[in-house]
């Protein structure tokens, strides 16, 4: 149990440390992938528009000044709005964009699980003798009586 906890912590740290380092010391290439050019609506790395060149110069300048990635992004958002970010921020209303797909997958998976469970239970639970799968008599009682009469007459 303790081993598992340590393994989870080590895994979390393995992912968290590079992310923290990337935020602390961002590179132009990283930010070019995470920022959208407002005139051509592609990421900066794919854009050669004049405003994209200007934004690259701004990012270089802010990196040299020691800004973190989040600070640089915040400054760009203050100038161009949130649409300048390639991915919505993980806060406020925008958090929905991150959570809804997970909720959708969870709800869909749960629904599939429930249906699969019901189907498998139905198959494993054979119907009692004389009853159909839906629990009803195979024949209508009146019809069954008539069949019995006919069979008796046939036997005679």
């Amino acid at each position: 149990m303790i081993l598992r906890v340590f393994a989870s912590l080590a895994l979390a740290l393995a992912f968290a440390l590079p992310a923290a380092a990337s935020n602390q010391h961002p590179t132009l290439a990283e930010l070019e992938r995470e920022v959208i050019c407002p005139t051509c609506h592609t990421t900066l790395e794919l854009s050669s528009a004049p405003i994209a060149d200007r934004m690259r110069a701004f990012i270089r300048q802010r990196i040299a000044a020691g800004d973190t990635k989040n600070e640089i992004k915040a400054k760009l958002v203050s100038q161009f709005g949130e649409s300048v970010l390639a991915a919505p921020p993980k806060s406020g209303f925008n958090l929905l964009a991150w959570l809804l797909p997970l909720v959708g997958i969870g709800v869909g998976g749960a629904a599939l699980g429930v249906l699969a469970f019901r189907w498998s239970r139905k198959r494993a639970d054979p119907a009692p003798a004389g009853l159909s799968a839906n629990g009803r008599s195979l024949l209508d009682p009146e019809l069954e009586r008539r069949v019995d009469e006919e069979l008796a007459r046939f036997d005679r």
Partner: protein
Amino acid sequence: MAGRLKILLQAAAVVVVALLLALLGWKVVHTDEGRALGAEVNSGKRPAAPAFTLPRLGSDDEISLASFQGKVVVLNFWASWCGPCKDEAPLLEAAWKRYRDRGLVVLGVDAQDFDVDAQRFVDRTGITYPIVRDKHGSTLGRYGVTGFPETWFVDREGRLVGEHVAGPITEEQLERNILLALGTAP
């Protein structure tokens, strides 16, 4: 129970698809709104100019288009990195000075730009007419702006008139449309 769950899931799926379609429809209608406006104006119609309120460049004050009701407005969309915008700025400044006594206002809308660059542009070109900053580009779609510069003319009743000039404006185009909007076209 399984049947009810199935119906519930199907209903939820239909609702989600309907919502997505409604969103798509809304987006298409609002994206085409600006393009339709240009076609209407160029065919001689006089649609209402889409209203907006934006902060003034370098200040927290806001300017709304509605505040110019009763005046003719030359609405010029620009950005500091746009070469032709530099060329036409002196024309707009000259028109503003020439016709302001007759009720003309030139209103610059700066978008897709840095504040500091926009301010530097204003200082270097010597613009004195009011400039607003559209940081989120909220007016661009509504006016069908696809590049810079673009110019619209708004009459005293707040309707778009004359030509929608997509690209750098010439002195002759500027004069003709101002006179038309002022109601003194020959």
